């Protein structure tokens, strides 16, 4: 049975008509000890069939060491959204529920080059000296989460210094403890700094500044 029903599939096709440049979905999967690898694989098969500009590569987490290292993958399922280059845009866990919009938004951004960052944010990112790692913890049932994910992914797209992950916390219970996640969205900056909620751009920038 298809993951995406006809109505959603139609919407996906229509959305992907806006694609300009090709995009590759690099999926890291494993046949065992992985909650949603199978479902994520099927989802990406269906999404990538919706546009001739989308390509899917599937790697095995346990055996494709070179790719795992190249993309810095540390948990599965993982998706890297890659265009002309790898921008550091990652999805850990299946992008279902509201996060499906984040997946499509990332594909379209990489393909079209269009972000919604303000001039101030771009100026800030241009001046970044040190690397920034944003991990946005989400639940698929959280409608406030995608804006936080999309903002982080936009920063990763714009700046080589930034990498940004969506992390579906339900699939990685140990991380709940490690990053003390009791509410979503929660954005972790460079492992140590936190922002609760869907922070507006200026607030996230202020927190990143604090973290550096």
């Amino acid at each position, binding site marked *: 049975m298809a993951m995406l029903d006809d109505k959603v599939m139609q919407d996906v096709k229509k959305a992907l008509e*806006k694609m300009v440049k090709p995009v590759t979905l690099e999926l890291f999967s494993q046949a065992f000890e992985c909650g949603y690898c199978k479902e994520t694989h099927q989802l990406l098969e269906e999404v990538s069939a919706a546009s001739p500009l989308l390509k899917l590569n599937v790697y095995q987490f346990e055996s494709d060491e070179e790719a795992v290292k190249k993309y810095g993958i540390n948990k599965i399922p993982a998706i890297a959204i890659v265009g002309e280059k790898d921008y550091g845009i990652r999805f850990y866990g299946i992008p279902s*529920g509201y996060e499906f919009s984040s997946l499509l938004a990332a594909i379209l951004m990489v393909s079209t080059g269009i972000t919604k960052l303000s001039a101030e944010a771009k100026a800030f990112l241009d001046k970044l000296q040190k690397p920034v790692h944003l991990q946005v913890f989400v639940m698929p*049932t959280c409608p406030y989460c995608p804006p936080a994910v999309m903002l982080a992914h936009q920063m990763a797209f714009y700046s080589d210094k930034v990498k940004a992950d969506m992390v579906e916390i339900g699939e990685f219970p140990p991380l709940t403890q490690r990053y003390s996640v009791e509410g979503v969205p929660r954005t972790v900056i460079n492992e140590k700094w936190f922002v609760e*909620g869907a922070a507006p751009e200026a607030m996230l920038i202020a927190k990143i500044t604090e973290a550096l």
Partner: protein
Amino acid sequence: MLDFKLHLDDAVEPDQLFDLIIIGGGPAGLTAGLYAARYKLKTLMIEKSVMSGGQLVTTEWVENYPGFPEPILGEKLAKDMEDQAKLFGLEVVREDVLSVKLSGDIKEAKTAANTWKAKTILIATGSSPRHLGIPGEAEYSGKGVSYCATCDGPFFPDKVVAVVGGGNSAFEEALFIAKYARKLYLMYVKDGLIADPILQERVAAEPKIELIPNTVVEKIVYEDSPRYIQIRNQDSDEQSKLETDGIFIFIGAIPNTDLFKGQLELEGGYVKSYPNNGTSVEGVWAAGDVQEKTLRQVATAVGDGANAAFAIHKYLMFKKD
């Protein structure tokens, strides 16, 4: 069961003059959008969240909106409202409005990426959850203190949770959170029990929920282990500690009017209502929870939205002459 929701921006050309900009995509904004699009007004709706619907999106079931004898999922109703409006040509961008210019013939709404311009503006920004304003609340927001059951309810499986509030939201959300929690204390202040009787009956039938009436929460002490909240009974004035892993707060709402302060007349924080959903500024209307009125429901928001769109349509016709 996995589901996949797709809500993306429409590709909207920024350098154009709209007839109407609707700020906020809840039921009021969506209804105004539907009506305005059918009046053939060039209409843009700006919604800050990834999906339209406002508070509908975080409401699990809607039972008091007519036409749906089976309860309808809030997010489904919201999505259907948006699809319907878009069918007639409403354009939607998902951006956060940072500032507005309400005066003059050309109004502006500025977001991080764009400055949108229109002849008229409809304010439909709704409201946000009211906070208790007690020690520990801000510090532990997102770390045990929550205002969104669908977002954070699943973080409390088999845990003990407090829900604060005596209105419909508190009672509905308590029933939702009770699916996860082991034990739930539902507390409200003196004379604060205003939930619909049907919801009170359902709460009474849920064995996990214990009601604690006539009680205020004074302090959230979550740095300690075990975590507790300090509560006070308003009859006996007795203070006590209640161990809870999380606390959900549903004590009403505050209008989202910060953007407009100093530019139009407010009353008690809400946008002051004039006939036909007008405001104190020419070319600016308000609809839904953000306006000063008595009942804030999907059904009343929808009526406001239709009213406002009709008034705007008439105003623009008159302006053309």
